[in-house]
């Protein structure tokens, strides 16, 4: 047994190239070629990297990203692997051979993917809205809500309470409908600027704002300006905030 290999990414190339001690825990990173594909790896024991210490974990994850970034700079297109992907050897097969076998077996598929991602990158787009601002606008503009709000003012205390609940329910319903409308609108506008798009789970935010949509987008790096302009327009709308991140290796599309 010769230990195992931690894999950062797959890229094109047919030479064994040393990238220096840039890996996790300063391990030496190098490429394992097979035909015209390379795996970017470092040597490691046959066990996953885990730590109770979050800071250690964070350092590792950032190192992982750093290596993929360097590989992207050096080789162009890469297919990134998730953190902690380790390939082991078997009794009579060294781990290098296992990697080569995999590259060989999956050659067509990997090649196709590399072609698909050529000159492209992944970008994250998250659109967040402020329910307070949107709700206020709804109260001002929605006739049904306006009516109910007017009625409420003339009611006795007990009835007013009931009306308030009615109003809250109606507002909630309208907010949901509004969210759906905006979602579709934004999705269509963004889709026009990208090659591929994936809807990700929205996430809870710390403040009282809500994430309306969370997208991963694949596009030509040069085209990020066009997407940026579209997002700028959304960002300028009252009550909306856009987070635009990237370029990332195409984690979401491999």
């Amino acid at each position, binding site marked *: 047994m010769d230990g195992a290999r931690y894999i950062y990414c797959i890229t094109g190339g047919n030479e064994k190239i040393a990238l220096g001690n840039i890996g996790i825990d300063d391990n030496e990173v190098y490429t394992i070629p097979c035909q015209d594909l390379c795996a970017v790896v470092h040597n490691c024991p046959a066990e*996953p990297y*885990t730590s109770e210490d979050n800071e250690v974990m964070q350092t590792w994850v950032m190192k992982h990203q750093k290596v993929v970034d360097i590989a992207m700079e050096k080789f162009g297109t890469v297919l990134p692997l998730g953190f902690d992907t380790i390939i082991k050897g078997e009794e009579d097969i060294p781990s290098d051979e296992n990697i080569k076998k995999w590259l060989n077996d999956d050659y067509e598929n990997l090649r196709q993917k590399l072609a698909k991602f050529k000159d492209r990158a992944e970008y994250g787009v998250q659109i967040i809205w402020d329910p307070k601002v949107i709700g206020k606008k709804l109260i001002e503009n929605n006739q049904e809500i306006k009516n109910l709000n007017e009625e409420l003012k003339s009611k006795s205390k007990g009835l007013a309470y009931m009306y308030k609940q009615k109003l809250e329910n109606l507002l909630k319903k309208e907010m949901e409908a509004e969210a759906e409308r905006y979602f579709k609108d934004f999705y269509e506008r963004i889709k026009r600027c990208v090659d591929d798009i994936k809807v990700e789970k929205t996430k809870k935010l710390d403040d009282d704002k809500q994430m309306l949509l969370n997208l991963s987008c694949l596009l030509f790096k040069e085209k990020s300006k066009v997407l940026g302009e579209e997002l700028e327009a959304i960002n300028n709308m009252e009550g909306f905030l856009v*987070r635009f*991140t990237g370029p990332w290796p195409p984690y979401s599309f491999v």
Partner: protein
Amino acid sequence: MEPSRDTHATLVDLLDRILDKGLVINTDIIISVAGIPLIGVNLRAAIAGMETMLKYGVMQAWDEKTRAWEREHLKKNSPSLLEEEEIVLKMYGYYYYSKGIYTAWRPGYFYLTNKRLILYRQDFDEIAFQVPLEEIKALLIREEVHFVKEKKKRVLYLMDKQNQVHRLSAVETTQLKKAIEQNLTTIGLFLETNPVFPAFEEVLIDFLTEAEEITHRGREIWYLVPASGILQETWRPGHLYLTNNRLCWWYDFERKLFFDVPVNTICSTKTEMRKTSGLNSTKELVLEVTYRFGSTELVAAFAGEEQIEEWTEALNRIVSGRVSEETETCPQCGKSAPSKELLEDGCLNCGWVSHRSKKKIAEVAL
């Protein structure tokens, strides 16, 4: 708008990608990394910022605590035993704990061993009650009221050699008692044959004022607790007390007075056969006490099987006694007489009759 790679929010976004995504290798040569998602959550939380970390942190500590508790809990599910001590019987039950105003039936497992009777509280790894077998002086089972009117609870009274009485209740109280007795016999101990248990005063009678005396008391008197809020009126068991000043009903379960009226506000009593339970249709004698409350009259209903007649009599004595005590002076001669007599029969001294009585007499004459 330019994409960014190095802000704080960006970092979280990137982590989502590195931890959850990336090229997947579908082969068995990859080392399985169980537990990574968990670390991912943790890590993301750590990077997401202080605020979130606190949120997650609390949860994480809680999570760890509950798991640690569970491990402890699973590990330790019986009390530590003495040398040569063996468990004879294990049974779920309760021990009546009372200290000051705090009282509660504490649940746990009874462990009867060849040396002790223990009530062990697993969740807290605590022995709530224990008595060495040779300290048991006497046992007695009493049926007591349960929260629900139709049910009775068997309570095991255990007296120790210091004459302290403990109340125990188990899933099978009778069986528990038998097991204890058997166990005592096998180790050559005997219980007192005719134990005299001191009266077990369940009610903390601290509601009496100075110079107030209880003239009548009844256990297991049910009171129809009036509807309040969303709660419907319900029969509840308790203790009824008549003092020289008040009629009070003590609610067993909340351990406080629920009904408390001065005797001089009681106007009348009435009894009738009524259904007192929603579960069956048998009727029983119910005493209805009408009393003044401000300017209105209210009715309180009590049930308590054969005790009710006795209570009705006691209350009637008060009502009728009070009427005869009220005296008035005759408007004509000034002689004092019971007001009822004066109004209905007229003055025996001077022959004065009230206006209403005059009318009545006139009507009769016609």
